[in-house]
């Protein structure tokens, strides 16, 4: 049921604005009691304040460091527009990569205790005997964690805006990086939530989440190494089979490479800068046997978005299943 906003003037006008702009979001926030409860608890706690403080401090210090290093190298050319744009790109890139890293670390912290802590505090059974559906409980936990992560992401905008003052960063980069941040937040929150939904202890769920993240990073590193090692042999085609194999390997490695947030962000930028193309890249294969040909691969951010959203969807569905099933 959608309730029309009322009560205090400022809150009322904010609610009216939210309702008129995003009716679905308003319904989610106003009708899901879990979101309101979680946000209220998080914003009251010291943990909420310190998370924000740590997040902003880390990004500010790193950005300052990168800015100082880049600016020091070319202090003689500070009025050169190209140089200023490079500094702008460096600042923007630093902020985005740091945000991707921190969001992937904060996401599981926020959600790995979401359901497990309800079990620990013996409130899970109380909730499961109410009319609150398993889906609402899971979406409420996810929504509140995402809302806090989005607060972290938006709070960095003033630091990010330094890059816009210097130039060199286009609207496409801003939109793609924002999308990747949102998708990263959704995926890593879903990962923590998934472990939380079937493990009885928050500690276990947190350890499992971080073990998975570590494996993901190690896997990303192996793929990077694999790409580097196989790169020299990629185009030494001697038979038609080799040429097909090379193409296949290209596609697999490109896809795997696109499934890591940092490498996907870096290579999306590379494709954008070098090929001036936001959506795809050309791969040329000069085979003497099957002839010279070019094929197209989607930009890493597209693969990343699709794969991570698909995985997040599966993890959310599994979480709902584990929350819903009665004990046996």
């Amino acid at each position, binding site marked *: *049921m959608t*309730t029309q906003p009322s009560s205090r003037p400022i809150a009322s006008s904010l609610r009216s604005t939210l309702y008129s702009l995003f009716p679905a979001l308003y319904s989610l926030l106003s009708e899901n*009691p879990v979101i*309101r*409860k979680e946000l*209220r*608890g998080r914003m*009251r*706690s010291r943990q909420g304040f310190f998370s924000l403080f740590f997040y902003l401090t880390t990004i500010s210090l790193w950005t300052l460091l990168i800015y100082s290093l880049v600016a020091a190298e070319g202090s003689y050319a500070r009025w050169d527009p190209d140089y200023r744009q490079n500094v702008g790109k460096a600042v923007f890139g630093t902020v985005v990569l740091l945000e991707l890293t921190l969001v992937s670390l904060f996401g599981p912290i926020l959600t790995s205790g979401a359901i497990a802590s309800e079990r620990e*505090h*013996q*409130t*899970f*059974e*109380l*909730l*499961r*005997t*109410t*009319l*609150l559906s398993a889906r609402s409980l899971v979406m409420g936990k996810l929504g509140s964690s995402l809302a806090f992560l989005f607060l972290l992401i938006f709070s960095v905008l003033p630091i990010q805006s330094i890059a816009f003052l210097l130039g060199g960063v286009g609207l496409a980069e801003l939109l793609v990086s924002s999308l990747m941040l949102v998708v990263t937040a959704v995926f890593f929150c879903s990962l923590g939530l998934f472990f939380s939904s079937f493990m009885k202890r928050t500690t276990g769920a947190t350890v499992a989440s971080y073990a998975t993240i570590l494996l993901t990073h190690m896997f990303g590193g192996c793929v990077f190494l694999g790409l580097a090692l196989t790169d020299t042999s990629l185009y030494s085609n001697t038979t038609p089979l080799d040429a097909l194999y090379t193409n296949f390997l290209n596609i697999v490695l490109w896809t795997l490479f696109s499934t890591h947030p940092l490498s996907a962000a870096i290579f999306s930028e590379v494709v954008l800068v070098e090929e001036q193309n936001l959506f795809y890249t050309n791969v040329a294969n000069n085979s003497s046997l099957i002839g010279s040909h070019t094929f197209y691969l989607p930009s890493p951010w597209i693969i990343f978005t699709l794969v991570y959203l698909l995985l997040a969807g599966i993890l959310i569905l599994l979480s709902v299943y584990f929350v819903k099933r*009665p*004990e*046996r």
Partner: protein
Amino acid sequence: MTPIVEIEGLSKKFGKRTAVDSLSLSIESGEIFGLVGPNGAGKTTTMRMLVTLLKPDKGEMRVGGYSVRKSPREVRRLLGFMPDTFGVYGDMTVWEYLDFFGACYKIPAPQRTALIRDLLELVDIAHRRDDTVDTLSRGLKQRLGLARVLIHDPSVLVLDEPASGLDPRARVEIRELLLEVARLGKTILFSSHILADVSELCTRVGIMEEGKLVALGTLDELGQRLTPHRLVRVAFLPTIEREEARAVLSRLPGVMEARRLDGLESADWPSLEIEFNGDDASLHRFLAAMLEQGLPVVRFSEETQNLEEVFLRATRGIVS
């Protein structure tokens, strides 16, 4: 009266251990039904299956005509469950706690305000509405739990050990509160180890042991069934030896057994507990016969059956 809770052939196993074994039970609307039994008897398991938290292996349960298995949502609408452990959100105030659960039961926000105010008045914790839940004593938390259970106006309250761990005053207060709630027309199913609470509250009692319902009925019915003889307590002046009195009594008609009884009124009085078989007229003749035999009777009373006695008899031989 129509049964609001119906349980038929309910069974549940955890591994090789049978927690609930072919349990059948019917509770009528407006009843206060007490489920008693030793630890591990299957009371909590039965309740958890009834409130949709645990999946039964066999059997059917219906609440208000709705199958627990097929229509859990409708059943949850009709039930209010208070587990034996009190789940708290420590950082919430009493008001927020009830408001949150009200929202979980889809009660519209404007209605919740008045409803929570009334509930806090009912359980008498309105003065603590802005305190965090963590700061409440166990007794007050239990009252808050009761308010939570009532928030969606359920027909049946399922309360697992509601008086467990409470001090005597809090126990009495919770007991009075439950009677107050029962007067509102609610059906109450509760389990307890405290037999005094059960005997003072319940209209009917079910005694469970090793997953089975070993006795069921009103306290009087159970008493008659499990202890068919009347229990009569007699005290004599110390001018007679206890054994001498017992020998005389054992010969009188209707006396099934005469046992030694200590501590009746005065330590000096030799006292006996007699299992007597007969109606009120026989009992009158028994008293007259004792006096005719010259026994110096100073006290003669019939004991009503208490739940403790009934419980011990119902579970005798199985509980070690």
